[in-house]
């Protein structure tokens, strides 16, 4: 079975949050994942976009076996997440970074926090040190190893959290809105770190976000709305549908909107402009012709 499918494969995944009153009677049911299917190849950089409440965080928790499918199946590296004995292997294969940097750092010293995961999975001491050093180096936080997390900036804390996951040597890392609480500098650092891990270590990345400018360099983008995957494709394919993106309450970058507006006004610019340089080139070209 293993090897015949992608590192993450979901088939008709359903998750419902059931609210019960004090007597245990069902008060309301909300469907957070509504028959979601997706297949991620090892080494891919995937972005999942969606507004708050679109179901993207629920999907993330499934990939880490923190939630179990209500219906459908999810395989992580060939392992069915609904089977009890797969829980720890799955969590080790697909590491997870959460939104709030403060609430996921356990230790009072950076290096000890990075060592927490390896400790849990029984890595021998010497190897833990090795892994901690490598992971902190990979996220560019090695010189802060003896610091207290409380004195780091949000972006730095988030990179420590990533190092903590990297130290468990996962094949895949799920980042659940890792930049939502950061300032622009911190955001850029975190996204750059994710790309580096993907490029240099071949780690599959699943980046969940609502900032569109963060997905420009992804291999594939999924857009979620009301628990469903409503769009998927390369960033360019996705960015070319400005109207649809706005419908899904997403924030299209200024250059993409501008390019779209110019095209509507008859200026010859390509569809789905992602970067500023592209638009500059396109406009200059249009100017030459004119």
């Amino acid at each position, binding site marked *: 079975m293993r090897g015949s499918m992608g590192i993450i494969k979901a088939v008709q995944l359903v998750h419902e949050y059931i609210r019960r009153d004090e007597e245990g009677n069902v008060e309301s049911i909300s469907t957070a994942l509504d028959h979601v299917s997706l297949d991620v190849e090892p080494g891919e950089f995937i972005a999942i976009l969606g507004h708050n409440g679109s179901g993207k965080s629920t999907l993330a928790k499934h990939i880490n076996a923190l939630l179990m499918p209500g219906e459908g199946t999810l395989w992580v590296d060939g392992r069915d997440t609904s089977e009890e004995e797969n829980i720890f292997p799955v969590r080790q294969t697909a590491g997870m970074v*959460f939104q709030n940097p403060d609430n996921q750092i356990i230790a009072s010293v950076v290096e000890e926090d990075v060592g927490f995961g390896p*400790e*849990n999975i029984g890595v021998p001491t010497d190897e833990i040190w090795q892994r901690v050093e490598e992971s902190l180096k990979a996220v560019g936080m090695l010189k802060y190893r003896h610091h207290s997390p409380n004195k780091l900036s949000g972006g730095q804390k988030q990179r420590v959290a990533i190092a903590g996951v990297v130290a468990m040597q996962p094949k895949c890392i799920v980042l659940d809105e890792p930049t939502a609480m950061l300032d622009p500098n911190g955001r850029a650092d975190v996204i750059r770190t994710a790309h580096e891990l993907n490029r240099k270590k071949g780690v599959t990345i699943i980046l969940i976000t609502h900032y569109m400018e963060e997905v420009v360099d992804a291999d594939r983008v999924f857009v979620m709305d009301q628990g469903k995957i409503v769009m998927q494709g390369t960033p360019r394919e996705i960015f070319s549908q400005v109207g649809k993106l706005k419908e899904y309450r997403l924030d299209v970058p200024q250059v993409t909107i501008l390019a779209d507006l110019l095209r509507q006004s008859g200026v010859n610019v390509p569809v789905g402009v992602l970067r500023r340089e592209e638009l500059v080139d396109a406009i200059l070209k249009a100017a030459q012709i004119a």
Partner: protein
Amino acid sequence: MLRDITLGQYYPADSVIHRLDPRVKLFCTMIYIISLFCFRGVAALGAATVFLIAVIRLSHVPFRFMIKGLRAILILMLITGLFNLFLTPGEPIVTFWVFKITAEGIANAAIMVIRLTYLILGTSIMTLTTTPNQLTDGLEKSLMPLSRIGVPVHVVAMMMSIALRFIPILIEETDKIMKAQMARGADFESGNLFKKVKNMIPLLVPLFVSAFRRADDLAMAMEARCYHGGEGRTKMKPLRYEGRDRLAYLLILLYFALILLCRKFLRWPQ
């Protein structure tokens, strides 16, 4: 910056003292405190002083960090000193109104102040050179035998280290919520006790909500990193005694023997 007030007030440096096993440091601190309360005579005082200075020098912690702890108990020291100064019976040297100062009083006051100072400095060295986590590790390992009789030592130690990490965050949060409610006109100062308690509700409810939310998040983050209790866990910084730890044990015992010997044979001046 409230986050700077950490309970452990760890001072990062690379010194022999920093590298000592926390169990050694716990044990030595305990012995040192006991020695402070049983020494007699100038020779013993000298030994305690030399020992303290030597350890401070070895620790590479700047002295100004040490005396920070002293500031907090300045008042306590003053009161103890004054009590001893005025209330020790004996031959009066100076008398005014109902007060009299005796030679014994001066000696007692001086000794008390010295004891308290050394006590604070001694424990500060431990907290300044040991991370809170090492400290809980030390306690965990020292108390591990208790787990055989059903005491959840690992769980308690884990709780302690998490508390140590989150207390500064919650202190900061308290400050933030307090300010936010003050911006909405809340008053945390005036009124009688009952009113004051009632006035704390706008502070306490959000604080609890936040603490629970954090606990929830943290539990999930720990689970995601494969935490499943103490079973099968390895340690990044396992406690293993090394040559320097054995040497430290030897030194503290020698020191303690010296104090006891002084107590028996070198009590001058009484």
